[in-house]
């Protein structure tokens, strides 16, 4: 098995190297042979997918066959591991996850190379750049982190098993989503660099890559929030985001990718920000690689980083090559990136995008700075410091609030210039709604003057209401115009409106999802928790809930032994649920893990953790968290996904409406 896998990896490296070199040569040389050479390079790239896929299949089959002669399988699987987790073995460790990265990259490359007829020359350039990235990962897999390395000495009877924290259903989908996001940014990067190298005329390359970028951004969003949900459900500390370096690594490309998705519209519509967009997508790709470097090099300590290894040097070298290449072609062809239009007014969509980009990049810088400051501090003053949640929250929350304000104002601004009267007219009612919400919350007992976190929470909710009202008003106004022309009801008109300009209205739906998430975050200020030893019949009260310990039970299966509590939950004297917080002991890895019992409602989560037993009293220790509004975060993610899907749907053909008067036939839903 290991020989087939190793051979497949070598063959894939050879194919990608050929795809890169032959593709490059075909682009450089002139003559009739260039086309044929380029075609062989494209086909070699396509073939590389099949071979990397074969290598991945070999590793998964080895996991299912318990082939512990392969060191990777021995370290990350065992005989009694359930089938879904055996499948997840592919991305559970350093070497396997790199193979998975290479597989996804070759899959993206496959799609790109199959769609080459869209623009043969641009796709040929992009294919060569992707082949270069593939070569790097395959070099790594063949010479630094081979997943098919064999065990030395006698064959072990069983493997070490999968890390218990990873034995959770979401871990089967969270890494693939995250990797689809990370790896996917290679495609817009390749197109951007290709367009720069060949001085591609016009903005067509942006239109070609728009879907790639949105799909990739959607995957990364899913990946980031699935990770948050996994942390919430498995780690048992009652939170979903700890500003861990690995979490930060996934957030950074998301922030720059979000900035790119906004600023690229300025290039499409107005021919502006060409240099900025180019470097934004370069940075997003480099941050994806940098995140991988952070996770795998051991340069920063993290709960869920991979083992420390020497592959960090490879990533540093690769990052240096990428940066040098981008800089070289930028300096060489920067005249191609000159802005075609000028800014006409400060109160315009263009300037709102500029400030939006600034805030997103400041947030990204803060995350990067905070993640790397411990290393810098050790280097400068010889002592390591911790940069944890208090730092990130204090610095990033005000930035996030400013972003929310821009999210509310931005859509109300027109391209080029907006009159103050128009802004007032569109902004008045949403602003009054937001202010009334603030007054209502204070009247209901919220005291923003008592603590800065309460103030931030109140501001978050008020600004979220402001965004929601502006989004709703955009839909309603557009829907009414269509309704007047077509005679449809408001809802049908709004659906038609969204279908006419899916990108714009899909974007608004995404904004709506973001504010739902922000309201969920704002709830965390009011979190409560309580810890207590609980014997049979013991009670604990938290908020409106009373938990009564009914019994304790134990169970055992080949993979793990477990003990759990049966807790009856009462509210207002009435039993409303029974929760079973659990603690597991995994036999192969000899590690414990908690399985949180959570009763989630839109109002709050009752989050119960079985922490262990007090050895002196023999009584189990139960910790209960009451976390308001957490469900809103997960609902918000679904709304973002829905918005992204809407934005990916092609626009409906504009309906020709007979114009009774000369100026009444204005296109509805046009523009972004």
């Amino acid at each position: 098995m290991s020989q087939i896998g190793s051979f497949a990896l070598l063959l894939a490296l050879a194919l990608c190297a050929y795809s890169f070199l032959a593709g490059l040569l075909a682009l450089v040389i002139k003559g009739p042979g260039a086309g044929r050479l380029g075609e062989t390079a494209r086909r070699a790239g396509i073939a590389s997918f099949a071979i990397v896929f074969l290598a991945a299949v070999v590793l998964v089959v080895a996991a299912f066959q318990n082939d512990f002669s392969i060191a990777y399988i021995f370290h990350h699987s065992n005989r009694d591991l359930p089938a879904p987790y055996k499948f997840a073995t592919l991305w559970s460790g350093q070497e396997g996850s790199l193979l998975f990265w290479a597989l996804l990259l070759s899959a993206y490359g496959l799609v790109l190379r199959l769609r080459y007829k869209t623009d043969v020359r641009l796709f040929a350039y992009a294919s060569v750049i992707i082949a270069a990235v593939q070569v790097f990962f395959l070099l790594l897999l063949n010479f630094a982190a081979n997943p098919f390395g064999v065990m030395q000495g006698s064959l072990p009877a069983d493997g070490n098993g999968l890390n218990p924290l990873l034995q959770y259903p979401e871990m089967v989908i969270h890494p693939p989503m995250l990797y689809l996001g990370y790896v996917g940014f290679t495609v817009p990067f390749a197109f951007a660099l290709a367009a720069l190298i060949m001085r591609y005329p016009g903005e067509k390359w942006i239109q070609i890559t728009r879907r790639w970028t949105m799909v990739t951004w959607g995957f990364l969003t899913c990946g980031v929030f699935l990770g948050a949900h996994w942390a919430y459900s498995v780690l048992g500390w009652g939170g979903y985001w700890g500003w861990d370096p690995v979490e930060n690594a996934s957030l950074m490309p998301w922030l720059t990718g979000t900035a790119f998705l906004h600023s690229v519209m300025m290039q499409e519509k107005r021919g502006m920000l060409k240099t900025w967009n180019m470097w934004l997508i370069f940075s997003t790709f480099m941050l994806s690689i940098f995140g991988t470097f952070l996770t795998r090099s051991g340069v920063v300590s993290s709960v869920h980083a991979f083992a420390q290894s020497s592959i960090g040097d490879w990533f540093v070298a690769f990052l240096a090559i990428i940066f040098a290449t981008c800089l070289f072609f930028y300096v060489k062809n920067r005249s191609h990136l000159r802005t075609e239009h000028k800014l006409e007014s400060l109160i315009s969509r263009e300037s709102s995008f500029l400030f939006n980009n600034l805030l997103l990049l400041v947030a990204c810088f803060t995350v990067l700075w905070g993640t790397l400051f411990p290393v810098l501090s050790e280097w400068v003053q010889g002592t390591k410091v911790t940069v944890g949640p208090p730092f990130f929250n204090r610095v990033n929350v005000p930035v996030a609030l400013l972003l929310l304000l821009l999210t509310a104002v931005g859509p109300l601004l027109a391209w080029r210039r907006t009159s103050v009267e128009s802004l007032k007219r569109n902004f008045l009612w949403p602003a009054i709604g937001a202010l009334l919400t603030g007054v209502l919350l204070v009247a209901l007992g919220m005291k923003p003057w008592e603590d800065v976190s309460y103030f931030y929470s109140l501001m978050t909710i008020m600004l979220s209401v402001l965004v929601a009202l502006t989004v709703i008003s955009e839909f309603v106004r557009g829907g009414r115009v269509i309704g007047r022309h077509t005679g449809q009801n408001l809802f049908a008109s709004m659906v038609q409106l969204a279908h006419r300009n899916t990108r714009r209205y899909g974007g608004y739906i995404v904004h709506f999802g973001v504010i739902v998430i922000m309201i969920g975050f704002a709830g965390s200020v009011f979190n409560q928790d309580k810890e207590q030893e609980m014997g049979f019949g013991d009670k604990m009260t938290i908020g409106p809930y009373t938990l009564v310990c009914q019994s304790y039970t134990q169970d055992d299966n080949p993979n793990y032994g477990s003990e759990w509590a049966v807790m009856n939950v009462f509210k207002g004297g009435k039993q409303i649920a029974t929760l079973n917080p659990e603690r597991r002991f995994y036999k192969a890895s000899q590690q414990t893990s908690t399985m949180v019992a959570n009763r989630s409602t839109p109002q709050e989560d009752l989050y119960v953790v079985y922490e262990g037993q007090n050895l002196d009293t023999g009584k189990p220790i139960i910790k209960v968290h009451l976390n308001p509004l957490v469900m809103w975060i997960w609902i918000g993610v679904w709304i973002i996904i829905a918005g992204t899907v809407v934005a990916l749907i092609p626009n409906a053909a504009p309906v020709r409406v007979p114009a009774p008067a000369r100026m009444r036939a204005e296109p509805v839903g046009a523009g972004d």
Partner: protein
Amino acid sequence: MGIEANVPANSLLLSSRAKRGICSSPSSREAADSSSLALLGMTRIFFKRGTQLILLTLVVLTLLGAGDESARVNDLGHRMMCVCGCNQILLECNHVGCAYSERMRSELIAAVDRGDNDDLTLQGFVQKYGTTVMAAPTKTGFNRVAWIMPYLVLVLGLAMVTLIVRAWRSRPLVLPAGAVAAVHGAELEHFRDQARKDTEI
């Protein structure tokens, strides 16, 4: 309860002192019948009252801080990390059998019970467990750079965006070769109107 019991006592103290201050000023006025002296007397009264108010506020704030020990434990416990290597906030570490968090929490509660102020408590932990026990960099020495940089970048970014906007507004329009000739005057205004309608709905 402690705060409620103390506030009236302090209020009485303030009012009696204030009365004395007011009583002293008429005698001064009798001794020197000039407006400047009257002004001086008023200034003194305001100064005294101001000082008393500040002192009272400080006393109340100190009592407030000392009164809610569990809130202090909660606050301090969220400003420190568990040092077992889990990378979690001290009060959020939930590792079964963690060798550190339980002991550290007991030490924190003991320090707060002793009446140690926040700085002393945190300093004690830094001395015992090292600088990494603090969940965020302190605002001293080189660590200040950690806090300053994000804001500095924001300010520099704002300055840069402002400069870009200014430069763009004053920049002559660059048209690609073969582009349609620019329009002016009423025709331009017509196109602008149309574009506004197109994009504003």
